[in-house]
């Protein structure tokens, strides 16, 4: 059975990179005595895959991974068993059975929600919120994207599905996943340049709120949180 796990990464765990979070969960599954399936061979590893790596320095309320288990306790029990072996900084939010035909988390990702803020002392001059609104009103935002085959120009405006500003927090809903992934930093860099300043590496505090799959059509998106593709497992 494949299970989708949603978790939150907060506080000091933002300093832990993606690969280490994977290692962390492999050990946590064993501590919680969840019977995860292993690959064959002399050095078997857990069958486990993550939706979308989160960079060091970011926090998130919407992280996902899929695991294959031999059998599963109820969702409520799995969540509580896992949370009993977590450290401060990681909390499991849901545990849901995936239907057989569901794609894996990574392949399903289509969009992501982010909260972006400027760190104290790094914000542009006063009134930047208004200028951000004007900036977002542009029909296109062209950035230079460095790729493996050299750099190329890219219009990222169509990759932003939704946005708003509330106080000092910029909310962004952007395209994510393997097809076209927009990192919020890229947009903020373009905005900073329009402000005539360079975005220093520590300017932003970014928090991921959710990851979505797209269940709509070519014409119309229908974004649903990745966890909604799975089903709650009741008590046997």
């Amino acid at each position: 059975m494949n299970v989708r796990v949603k978790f939150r990464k907060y506080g000091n765990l933002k300093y832990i990179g993606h690969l280490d979070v994977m290692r962390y969960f492999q050990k946590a599954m064993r501590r919680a005595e969840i019977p995860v399936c292993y690959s064959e061979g002399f050095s078997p590893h857990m069958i486990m895959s993550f939706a979308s790596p989160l960079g060091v320095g970011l926090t998130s309320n919407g992280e996902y991974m899929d695991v294959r288990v031999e059998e599963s306790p109820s969702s409520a029990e799995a969540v509580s068993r896992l949370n009993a072996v977590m450290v401060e900084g990681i909390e499991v939010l849901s545990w849901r059975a995936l239907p057989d035909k569901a794609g894996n988390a990574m392949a399903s990702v289509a969009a992501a929600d982010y909260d972006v803020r400027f760190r104290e002392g790094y914000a542009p001059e006063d009134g930047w919120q208004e200028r951000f609104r004007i900036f977002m009103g542009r029909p296109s935002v062209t950035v230079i994207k460095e790729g493996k085959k050299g750099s190329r120009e890219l219009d990222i405006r169509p990759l932003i599905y939704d946005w708003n500003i509330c106080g000092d927090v910029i909310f962004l809903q952007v395209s994510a996943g393997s097809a076209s992934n927009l990192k919020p930093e890229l947009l903020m860099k373009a905005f900073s340049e329009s402000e005539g300043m360079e975005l220093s590496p520590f300017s932003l505090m970014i928090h991921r709120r959710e990851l979505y799959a797209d269940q709509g059509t070519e014409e119309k998106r229908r974004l649903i949180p990745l966890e909604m593709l799975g089903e709650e497992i009741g008590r046997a």
Partner: protein
Amino acid sequence: MRNLALSDEILLTVDKPARYIGGEVNAVMKDPKTVDVRFAMCFPDVYEIGMSHLGIQILYDMFNRRDDIWCERVYSPWVDLDKIMRERKIPLFALESQDPVKDFDFLGITIQYEMCYTNILQILDLAQIPLMASERTREHPFVIGGGPCTYNPEPLADFFDLFYIGEGETHYFELMDLYKRWKASGAPREDFLKMAASVPGIYVPSLYTVSYHEDGTVEAMMPVCPEAPAKVQKQVVTDVTNTYYPEKPVISFIKATQDRVVLEIQRGCIRGCRFCQAGMVYRPTRERDLDMLKKSAYAMLKNTGHEEISLSSLSSSDYSRLGELVNFLIDEFGSKGINISLPSLRIDAFSLDVMSKVQDVRKSSLTFAPEAGTQRLRDVINKGLTEEMILTGAGQAFEGGWNRVKLYFMLGLPTETEEDMKGIAHLAEKIAERYYEIPKDQRNGKCQIVVSTSFFVPKPFTPFQWAQMCTKEEFLHRAYVVNHEIKDQLNRKSIKYNWHEADVTVLEGILARGDRKVASVILRAYEKGCLFDSWSEYFHNDLWLQAFEECGVDMDFYTVRPRAMEEVFPWDFIDIGVSRRFLEREWKRAQKGTVTENCRQSCSGCGAAVYGGGVCFER
């Protein structure tokens, strides 16, 4: 949320910020207001290495079982953070509370190898604790050293308030209780040091004076007060079964060097190789009970979630119930995706059988440590491994599908001749020949033999403590002889040869058998920027040479000088149980090439029986 000592900006700038945030699984948190003693336990190297050390995990667990003590961890900040902390005067902090180490009651430093000595000064310096013990006041923590290098603590004597000689499980609580009494009394710092000196195993360097002969050798070491014993007795745990062993070791977020459960099956070694310090100072050999090991294995795997368990000991094949233990591990955990790793096994039919069950034969290699190239020299060093045993073991392994072999040797051993050096090449050649005896269609491609030589460093409390060390040039010459001989042989394409750095070996030799005069050099080297000397990319031999020069300390005095049988050594004030008489006898037998039987064949009366346990009382 726990507050961190370092800012977000710093943590996002440095490599692997996880090294500095604490908060790992099984890390112990306490309320500082509820404890009487705060103990910072330090391994003076980078986090991933320090976190892999079993001894600290044992003591961390032991201390934290007491409600009135909070033991936390400290490691060396890596060079990137080191620079930032100096620039911004950020005091070194402990990982759990993130509080400055300078406010602790104790800073305990485990001293595992000589090349970490400058890192010890870094720890003190960043912690803003005076480097010299004599400059510390009541406001500062007591700095206490432990671990293998404390069997000659003299080069570090100026920097430590106390040393704990031997195994920490025995008398630490006694020391803590004395400390609490002293702290409540408001008495001067010196008073605690005197009280501590009466605890078995505690050495307080400031309570001794050393006088020297004109030639620079030690004349005598005298206690300056009645509390300090003339001889400090090494402490050992007699019953290694009913003692402290951590069931919940701390698990790092980033991959530690030992990212696995470590099961220490025994302490000590019955063999008595004459170059080996561990084999002497951990005497007598003491085995842990099988049931205790089984229970520990369960508990530790459950509490850590590690995917691997490894046995630890100096010579696992000598554990009397190894077969039962290994089969238990395979049966119990093998099917649950747990890897079982079995280092330090002698290659024979039994070990090959087990190894074929727990690892991929084609990907793993066989390890032999003959240490010397000829039987004559192996007799000198008392290494009971014969050519026949090696060739038989390798032959069986080759038939079983293995084709990789690692061979470890030492160069510069006492009495070594050119024939012994060439013998290294010849032994590797014979192993290759043995491989190619297997018909071509039945073997697994070419064989790969990796020969590695380290350079011999005479260590205190070994029969070779009198030995002269080679010069750097001589070491390199010997490596050249080996290399040349290998390249001259038929199977040279199947044999790869690596040798160790010679500069660092010479320095290790000086620090290993150094006296109090060497302290000034360590300090000078540190001031010149030496740090992380055990990392070849950060080792600056030129700075060390300048430091010796400037301090007027003669390197050769500690390395190549012949030592008379009756010379008083700087470490002679320590009593490790093994008698000086035994070491002298072994040194003489070595020169004659006479082998001494291991503790299970017959007792040689080394003296370690005074501890009243272990192998000495098996029969």
